[in-house]
């Protein structure tokens, strides 16, 4: 008889997640509450693992998630994006939180959140720093204005604290706002960074699908659908100093401004987009698959709807560019 494998610290959470996730798919918000619960539990386990080795945390800290988790828009499967900030800058805390960061990334991987290709994880020293170091890093990113540093800033802007001190990153985000106050043109640099939208509707108003690969015939929902909305709305949120991280609540707040009234339609489109992706879950559970939509399987109504959403995403991008340019003209 085979010996049963010894239980790892994450096995219980893993099986709980697997058995319950199916019951939380009626809405994107319900699914994300579920993800939050799982990740908070995961954090507690990781912390107690590290406590056993290194004792209690040497100082206050915040653990935050970014990317789709930060925006409260995770699909059923999403890769991990997270970071750590801690108060006291010394060797002891550095060592402690590096260890914790590694443990969290490993734990998340164990329970079903794939590693992030871009290395946006607490296990990466770039995303695990003391408050002081974070301030310096963000200043450096702001000054550098390289494609990569701007990317990092945009990623960081979606950060949402999931464990530890709730306001641990608020001041860090304010650095971006202060910089833009001094140098409004920086907003346009941010816009340029995410301006490219993968084309999804052709000259004959046909939906452009992948021509090769295992998703041939599918439309790339992530790049052509989600990204233009997420990026444009994040930018407007930065401009208006809105601290919410989810695209929908950002939109909600923006619609409160009289000049953004026309974004109402955008909200509807983005909700539809989230729902299209949610329906994809029933078809497949592979990470890549949820980002592609098989247009052949859609009825005519859905197909037209998705086409309109894709077109509106591009329009929204253009609109955002105009808003920023107009702002810059008024400044001068």
């Amino acid at each position, binding site marked *: 008889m085979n010996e049963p494998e010894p239980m790892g610290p994450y096995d219980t959470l893993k099986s709980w997640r697997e058995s319950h996730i199916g019951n939380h798919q009626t809405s994107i918000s319900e699914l994300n509450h579920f993800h939050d619960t799982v990740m908070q539990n995961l954090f507690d386990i990781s912390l107690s693992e590290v406590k056993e080795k290194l004792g209690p945390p040497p100082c206050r800290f915040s653990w935050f998630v970014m990317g789709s988790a930060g925006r409260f828009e995770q699909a059923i499967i999403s890769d991990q994006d997270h970071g750590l900030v801690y108060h006291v800058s010394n060797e002891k805390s550095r060592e402690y939180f590096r260890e914790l960061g590694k443990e969290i990334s490993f734990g998340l991987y164990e329970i079903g959140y794939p590693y992030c290709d871009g290395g946006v994880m607490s296990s990466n020293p770039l995303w695990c720093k003391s408050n002081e170091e974070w301030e310096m890093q963000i200043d450096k990113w702001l000054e550098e204005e390289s494609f990569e540093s701007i990317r990092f800033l945009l990623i960081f802007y979606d950060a949402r604290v999931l464990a530890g001190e709730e306001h641990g990153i608020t001041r860090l985000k304010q650095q971006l706002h202060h910089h833009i106050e001094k140098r409004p043109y920086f907003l346009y640099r941010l816009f340029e960074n995410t301006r490219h939208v993968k*084309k*999804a*509707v*052709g*000259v*004959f108003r*046909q939906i*452009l699908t992948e*021509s*090769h*690969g*295992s*998703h*041939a*015939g599918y439309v790339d929902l992530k790049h052509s659908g989600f990204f233009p909305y997420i990026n444009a709305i994040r930018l407007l949120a930065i401009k208006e100093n809105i601290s919410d991280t989810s695209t929908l609540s950002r939109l909600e707040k923006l619609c409160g401004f009289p000049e953004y009234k026309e974004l109402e339609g955008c909200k509807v489109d983005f909700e539809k987009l989230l729902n299209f992706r949610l329906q994809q879950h029933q078809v497949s559970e592979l990470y890549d698959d949820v980002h592609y939509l098989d247009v052949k399987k859609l009825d005519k109504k859905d197909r037209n709807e998705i086409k309109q959403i894709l077109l509106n995403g591009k329009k929204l991008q253009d609109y955002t560019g105009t808003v920023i340019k107009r702002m810059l003209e008024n400044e001068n």
Partner: protein
Amino acid sequence: MEDIMFSLNSVWLILGAILVIFMQGGFILLEAGSTRMKNAGHIAGKTIFTFGISSIVFWALGYGFIFGENGNFLVGLSDFFYSGYEIEGMDYSTAAYFMFQLAFAGISLTIAFGGFAERAKLSVYVVFAILFSALVYPVVAHWIWGGGWLGEHGKQDFAGSTVVHLTGAMAAFAATILLKPRMGKFNKNGTANNLYGHNQVFTALGVLVLWIGWFGFNAGSTFVVDDGFFGFVALNTNLAAGAGAISALIISWMVLGKSDIPTMLNGGLAGLVAITASCAFVETWAAVVIGIVAGVLVFYSMKLFERLKVDDPIFALSVHGAAGVWGTLSTGLFATPELATVGQPGLFYGGGFTQLGVQAMGVGVSGAYAFVISFVLLYIMKKTMNGLRVTEEEEIMGLDISEHGSYGYPEAFLTKEKKISS
């Protein structure tokens, strides 16, 4: 005066031969660029020795089969092992003419091998080079150019859309079917992957070399320089190539949303292939139209073959096959009464359907012959040579190392090997 013309014509023919042989260089770049690094040395190198084989076979048998006397329905039966003798009363050197024809036979073979790329065994290249050069190409060439029955019907194929390109493409087609797709080309769910070529610069340069070589191919096919008609042929050739590149770029942009470079390059080539049959028979505006249609056709043909699960790494079936058919038919539409020195004017010039019918029959019969015979030959080879294809492991390693023992890009691979072993 006659002596001067004889010399000038001979120079023109040899220049044509040089340009057409230079097209092998274009194919080396085109094929190597369109395939992966691990097969680059093999693909480039094989072009040289298969041209060698084709030259020797053409000298021993091919020329006699195509142009010999006392022929039967299939081939002529004299003038084997050409000794370099001059035929009395010709306007140019017979040896120059021989070289010109030899170059064409070599091109047809290289086109055929496009369909073998990245998976056929080296021995298959050797054996099929001999068989194709002796039994496939000469028959079609004899029928149309060597005084055979299609030529007598007035089939118009000025420089060989059918004879050279379609014949090669049909052999490529038979090979792709028997060889089956390369590993990783198609997914289990039936979708196709893009096995990207390793160097688009090579591919583009290959197209330009072919484009230039084509002036030897088409304009050289006037054989003589007398009235300067070769200039007009060159003009038509260039117009069709340009139109094909443009229309392919536009159609790929309209349908895919992105202007695809390989499609555009294939569009230029398709324009060249299509105008090859008709370059001497049509007006300049028709050359542009022929090129435009060829560019669009090649785009859809590439998609079609992929949908049919035919893996055609260099797009030989679309560029030389589909465009070869279109080019041959096009003279049945556009040939003008003044220019149609062979056959009748086309449909749009009051010739009715006669010439179009002749063209269609020529394409059908020639294509079918080339396909069936190539298929049968390759099928027999498959049975007797223990398969046409390298093993799975060899295919993954790449044919550079499995078939030749050295890499086309040693630095790219040897360091990796070292890392693995250390």
